[in-house]
């Protein structure tokens, strides 16, 4: 087994391009960091080359033709991409939700009426808020919530990491700040951090919709699988492998993804 891997690698390296027939799929760092994409690949059964990245990064690589398919989560950027690439194909494939998390001792003092209210209260109180600041779907959603709250996020309390979700969550934990986190990453990291979710009344509105966008022919098979009944079963099974409680649910969060 190992020897075969070595030979495979040497072959890859000596030809200097293993590009060939493989399917290169980009996926949001949240889905990769939580271990979900690897489990989904297992369910799919065929080899995929999964490149983690932010929605903005992946759509840029897809536009350059370097990815065959992407799984991303920012509707605005996705629609923009579809307008520029009419031959691409898009479908809502699964969804999770966002959590607003913060230090236990501060969460009690925060308004829980809505996510926007809570974030307004965080800004007003001058509590630290840690932002991805990386063009990811999570970052886009966070900015939309600030706009809803009527807050321009800037100042010493607003900490930008420019990193993926897992590292950003740990920064928030270490400096005792709030952050917007995808439920899957939070579930994977919950053992090692002290942050707790703000119990929001409108938690249901914080859906995190992932879409698959097929960029070229090579991505067709995986795309078709994702939207098929087998794909739906695969998503449920992969989720059960990774998480104790369901995080990623198949299909669209709302009637209109």
């Amino acid at each position, binding site marked *: *087994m*190992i020897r075969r*891997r*070595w030979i495979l*690698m*040497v072959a*890859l*390296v000596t*030809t*200097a*391009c*293993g*590009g*060939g027939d493989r399917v*290169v799929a980009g996926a949001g*760092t949240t889905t990769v*960091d*939580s*271990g979900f994409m*690897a489990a989904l690949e297992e369910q799919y059964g065929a080899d995929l*080359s*999964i*490149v*983690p990245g932010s929605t903005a990064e992946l759509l840029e*690589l897809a536009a*350059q*033709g*370097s990815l065959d398919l992407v799984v991303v989560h920012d509707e605005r950027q996705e629609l923009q991409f579809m307008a520029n690439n009419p031959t691409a194909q898009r479908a809502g494939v699964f969804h999770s939700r966002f959590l607003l998390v913060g230090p236990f001792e501060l969460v009690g003092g925060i308004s829980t009426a809505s996510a926007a209210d809570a974030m307004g209260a965080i800004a007003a109180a001058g509590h630290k808020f840690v932002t991805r600041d990386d063009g990811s779907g999570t970052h886009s959603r966070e900015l939309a919530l600030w706009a809803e709250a009527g807050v321009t996020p800037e100042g010493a309390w607003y900490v930008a990491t420019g*990193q*993926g*979700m*897992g*590292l950003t*969550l*740990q920064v928030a934990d270490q400096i005792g700040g709030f952050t917007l986190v995808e439920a899957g990453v939070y579930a*994977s*990291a919950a*053992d*090692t*951090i002290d942050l707790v979710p703000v119990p929001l009344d409108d938690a249901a509105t914080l859906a995190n919709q992932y879409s698959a966008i097929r960029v070229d022919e090579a991505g067709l098979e995986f795309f078709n699988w994702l939207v098929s009944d087998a794909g739906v079963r695969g998503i449920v099974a992969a989720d059960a492998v990774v998480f104790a409680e369901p995080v990623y649910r198949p299909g669209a969060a709302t009637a209109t993804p």
Partner: protein
Amino acid sequence: MEFLGEVLGDAFRYVFEFGPELRTILALTLIVAGLATAIGVLVGVPFGVWLGLSRFRGRGLVLALVNTGMGIPPVLAGLLLLILLWNDGVLGSWDALFTPGAMIGAQALLAFPIAAGVTAGAVRNLSGDAVEQLAALNVSASRRSWIAAREVWPGIAAAVAAAFGRVIAEVGAVLVVGGNIEGETRVLTTAIVQEARQSNLGAALGLGLVLLAVALIVNLALTWAQLRGEPAA
């Protein structure tokens, strides 16, 4: 304290289990860093010897460029190669993005100036007498370079060690052009990033220990070779 002990325990368990994932990552790391160093050294050392021996206008500028190249941020080297390699790029037809080949290319770009710069420095440190004797030799220029290289070979060994140390420890270039694909382009440094992001601190630290062990073994071998060449005191 309890937390630290737990992480350390996880780290050692991860290393000593030596599972298939770790073996794949280690093998790819050795292949990529090894080939990148080999390319960088094969091109950089002869260039360094030539640069150290020759005298021409603008040599100072070339030396300064090489020395600047020794400090080029890996992520910048990766970015340059990414722009060349992506499908619409100049080398897009190679279809090499997110492959070990692209990673070797990026790391070779990093290894070359180090191999050249350290070698040139060693050659320039030859005593004036040695240089005069070399110049007086009635042999071809390539023969003269070969003699100079043999004279400074501990310096060349240092160049190899420095180049290898640089590429095996860098994360920026391989992350950008490799994409950190599990089982394909994930090496020790990018695996550390991945595990740290997933809050698997024990595995991240374990991978770091493996990285240090590899660097130590390579440096021990090169240092031993250097010392053996030293005249007895």
